[in-house]
């Protein structure tokens, strides 16, 4: 809004040959958005930074007399081996999820391109159904699918000849819970990635494929020399988005395991929340979440670079 303040100065210049008023209307139109964003987005972010620089526990929350302690909270978090364990787990979790999502989505997209009309509509319908499933509904259903005594997964595994899965309690084991969370997130993420990649693939000119086929190129060669290079920017864009979404995945983990059993599924957002909620150390929780924001900003910068490339390419 500082732009508005400058206006009268220019207008008082007398008898300018073309007296163009700087229009006020656009700034009035965006004012509500600016005010809302300032209060509901920028202010909480700034407040988070402030809390992370204060001693802010339950007493300070009630009384409101938090003292500044400089970077003490960051020092404390960064010197805690538990935090680095969480970071390592988050990176693994993200890497496994994103690789699986990208590989499987690419395969699904390539399949969609090659299907006839009806089969393609069927598969796309299924993907859209998955996409439309609310996170909470999907999470609840997965708990039911992997339920120990009546769950259909255990029944199927026993029927397929793995009797050790009779009444197997998936959620009591750290690695099994980790695996279920990955399955859930990959299952939920494929529709967006696959449909986006499919939409991009059908823009690649058919002549290129025909030429390659005449030259006798196999499926892998066609993909690695034509499809992937043509759509490099799109692949980059979707990978960045998936990284961001997986790093900050909170609801699935919180509802299924609350980060447990033990610490087996505690990733950064879950850890930040645990520290704040259960230990009531809002200062440390804020510091952890700021460190997560730093990690996300790196991914976001990569995303915007890809977005810029994509805009330039098209």
């Amino acid at each position, binding site marked *: 809004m500082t732009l508005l303040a400058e206006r009268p100065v220019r207008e008082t210049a007398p008898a300018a040959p073309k007296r163009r008023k*700087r229009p006020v209307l*656009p700034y009035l*139109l*965006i004012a509500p*958005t600016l005010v*809302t*964003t300032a209060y*509901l*987005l920028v*202010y*909480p972010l700034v*407040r*988070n930074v402030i*809390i992370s620089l204060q001693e802010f526990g339950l007493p300070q*929350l009630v009384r409101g007399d938090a003292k500044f302690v400089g970077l003490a909270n960051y020092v404390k978090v960064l010197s805690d081996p538990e935090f680095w364990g969480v970071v390592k787990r988050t990176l693994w979790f993200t890497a496994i999820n994103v690789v699986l999502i990208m590989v499987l989505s690419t395969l699904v997209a390539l*399949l969609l391109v090659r*299907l006839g009309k009806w*089969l393609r509509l069927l*598969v*796309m319908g*299924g*993907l859209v*159904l*998955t996409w*439309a499933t*609310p*996170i*909470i*509904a*999907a999470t*609840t*259903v997965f708990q*039911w*699918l992997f*339920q120990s005594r*009546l769950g*259909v997964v255990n*029944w199927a595994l026993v029927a397929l000849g793995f009797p050790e899965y009779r009444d197997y309690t998936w959620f009591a084991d750290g690695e099994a819970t980790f695996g279920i969370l990955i399955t859930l997130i990959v299952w939920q993420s*494929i*529709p*967006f990635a696959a*449909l*986006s990649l499919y*939409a991009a693939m059908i823009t690649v000119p058919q002549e290129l494929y025909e030429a390659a086929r005449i030259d006798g190129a196999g499926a892998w060669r066609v993909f690695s020399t034509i499809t992937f290079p043509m759509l490099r920017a799109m692949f980059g864009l979707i990978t960045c988005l998936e990284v*961001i*979404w997986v790093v*900050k995945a*909170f*609801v699935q983990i*919180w*509802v299924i395991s609350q980060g447990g059993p033990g610490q087996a599924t505690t990733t950064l*957002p879950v850890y*930040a*929340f645990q520290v704040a909620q259960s230990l009531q150390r809002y200062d440390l929780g804020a510091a952890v*979440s*700021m460190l*997560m*924001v730093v990690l*996300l900003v790196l991914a976001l910068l990569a*995303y915007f670079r890809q977005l810029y490339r994509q805009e330039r390419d098209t």
Partner: protein
Amino acid sequence: MIGRISRTTAALIVFVISVFPVYWMVLTAFKPTKDIQSATPTFLPIPITFDHFGTAIAAKGFFSFWRNSLLVAGGAVVLALLVALLAAFAIARLRWKGRRAFVLMVFVAQMTPWEALLIPIYVIARDTGMLDTLWILTLVYFMMTLPFTIVTLRGFLAAIPVDLEEAAQVDGCTRGQAFRKVVFPLLAPGLLATSLFGFITAWNEFAFANVLIIKDQDDRTLPVWLSSFNNTFGTDWCATMAASTLFMLPVLLIFVVLQGRVTTGIVGGAVKG
């Protein structure tokens, strides 16, 4: 020939994997309790029962949670539409200094990691006395959906030729009239699509609803209620699945209404959860 068969098989596998969890949810909701307890599960809803939906609806507070979710999501969407429409008009139709910076701000805001803001928003809600009220949830959801709403509306607005507006102005309409009488009717489908997607975001949100509504359990929303099904239904999985189905129903209806726009509009807007 072999290629064709393997492609068809692969397609069917993808279809079954993507549909099965939802199918299993709906199926469980319609099965008699003794059927889900049998050693071999049945994969068809025979015989069918509606008892579990009765249990879910009769659960304490079901209607107030339903109403709360509607109020919060509806309120957020209406606020977002009003504010976004103004901003989208400024971006799509007017030239002004700072426009590019504003668009960039909206894009950045769209990528906000809301999960990192749980703590400060909890503290702010507590300080302002909005903790345990639906107001704070409405405001948070409003801000969550606002950037996406601006981006999408701007796209829909840009697709409407300026000539139409100018023609109306030549014919004696004021700028406001031209917008109301010419642009708005053309924009209506876009408004509907955008608001429905905003609605889904707010309807599904769990993390903030879980943190900001603590004391007054009657003010909870459906996702939080659903996640605490263990307290509500014990180990009654049929009733839980019935409740999940009821929760998912509006979202599914919205997707069906918008089927054509799903892949084009939203892939373009790059939005998820």
